[in-house]
């Protein structure tokens, strides 16, 4: 996921991304950013809210609720004063091409 440096909320989004690098997929043991699960981040500065759009590798993933909770906690720990919300989306459908180069290395691919 890329964030445009001209984005007015670039700094906040970068901090959120940094936080999400700390959230690990328990099965694959790599973080959810390198796994390509995080699609977008929105910032509402007035309401001090960060919204994350992310997906899961499969809809029936039993770990889904745990991963989204960890994503929310990670952002709120990093961005004091902000509330975080995580929305699960299913379009576009996640596929293995979403995995970053770092993720592929971590997976030994």
């Amino acid at each position, binding site marked *: 996921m890329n964030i445009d440096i001209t984005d007015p909320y670039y700094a906040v989004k970068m901090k959120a991304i940094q936080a999400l690098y*700390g*959230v*690990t997929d*328990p*099965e694959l*043991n790599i973080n959810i950013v390198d796994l390509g699960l995080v699609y977008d981040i929105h910032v509402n500065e007035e309401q001090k809210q960060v919204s994350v759009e992310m997906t899961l590798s*499969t*809809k*029936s*993933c*039993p*770990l*889904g*609720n*745990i991963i989204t*909770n*960890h994503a929310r*906690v*990670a952002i709120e*720990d990093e961005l004091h004063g902000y509330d975080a919300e995580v929305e699960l989306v299913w379009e576009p459908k996640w*596929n*293995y091409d979403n*995995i970053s180069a770092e993720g*592929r290395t971590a*997976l*030994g*691919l």
Partner: protein
Amino acid sequence: MKPPDEHISRIATVVPYYILAAVSFVIFQALLIVSLPEIHLHYFQPKLLALTHLFVLGWGTMTIFGAANQLVPVIAETRLYSSVLPVLNWILLTIGIPLLIWSFWVFQLTWITYTGASLIIIAIILHAFNIYKSISAGKSNIITDILLMAHAWLFITGSIGLLLLINLISPLFPEEHLHYLKIHAPVGMAGWFLQLIIGVSARLVPMFILSRKENTKLLNVTFYTLNTGLALFLIEGMIFHSFHGRYVYLLLVITGLTAYAAYIQGCYKSALRKQKDAGMRQTFVAIGFILVALVLFFIVICMGAGVPPYITTMFGLAFFCGLVTIIIMGQTFKTLPFIIWMHITKPNSLPELMPKDLFNETWVNIQLWFYLPGLLLLLIGLACNLTITLHTGAILMLIAAIIYTVHVLYVTGKLKTKLL
């Protein structure tokens, strides 16, 4: 503990099954050593009957019931229909299995035997009902069809088993007892165990190795050919009291297995993660035992009534100890640590430990280092009638079973420590 997600089954529906199965596994391996002097005899004798049922019910089916309670909601994208029924079933099986096994061991068919068998049948019906209701409320696909059909065959196998028990004291069947035993065993092996392994692995293997492509049409071929072969075998055996079409039925089953092998090969070819961990390595070793079991089975049906009993026993060992046990031993540590982790991780803080930290991969390797040579020695000892080889093999397998059980208790013990 309340599960944080609808796809996570309650801990009581899964973990007690794994624990009791592991204990049964150790008892089975210990009793196998005790029974070695009789292992060359015909399989229809008290100790081998007791051992076989301890294996298939106490070890194999117990583990599969626990795993199914966790995996079916994931596969069908639904929730488990009832969380009470698995607890009740576990109690029924925990009482029923020892009663049946003891009766076989001492070969005294009394009310204890029939109480045990009835409790087991009730548990099977209730479990199958729970799985059926769970899948009905979720998304149907070829894998859920395979799982449902496997449960149907389990019910058929159990029912024939109960009728056979009754037949021993009050004849029900027109043909001799052994004729129906030849139906009871293959139907349970291929219909229940093999089909369930196919269904679950068809979902888990591509997930674990990150396959890009899954040709589920091949699973359709497996589903229809395997079940047609078994259904024809059952009908001819039960209604016409013969096995004239046995080569055709075997061919249908082999076609189904070939399609399954092609499916797994396709998954592996398109996999991103070709390096296999200990659990996956053991799964592939186990799948290889299907071939060994098939060759031995082919010899058994070719030789017919003249087959030496030890070859039939070798076939049983290759199927149950080779395929079923090794796949369970490997997949336990691909699933159980996750199940435990899901229940102990706190949703409102980041975990310090991950599922991979809840078990020891080296132990998973070591259990196979003992088990596989042990099983091979047992098979060689049986084929060549070598007592020392038989004993050495059985002892190595017992050590592996103890390592496995201690490891399972170590993983499940994390529930108490609440490390996360």
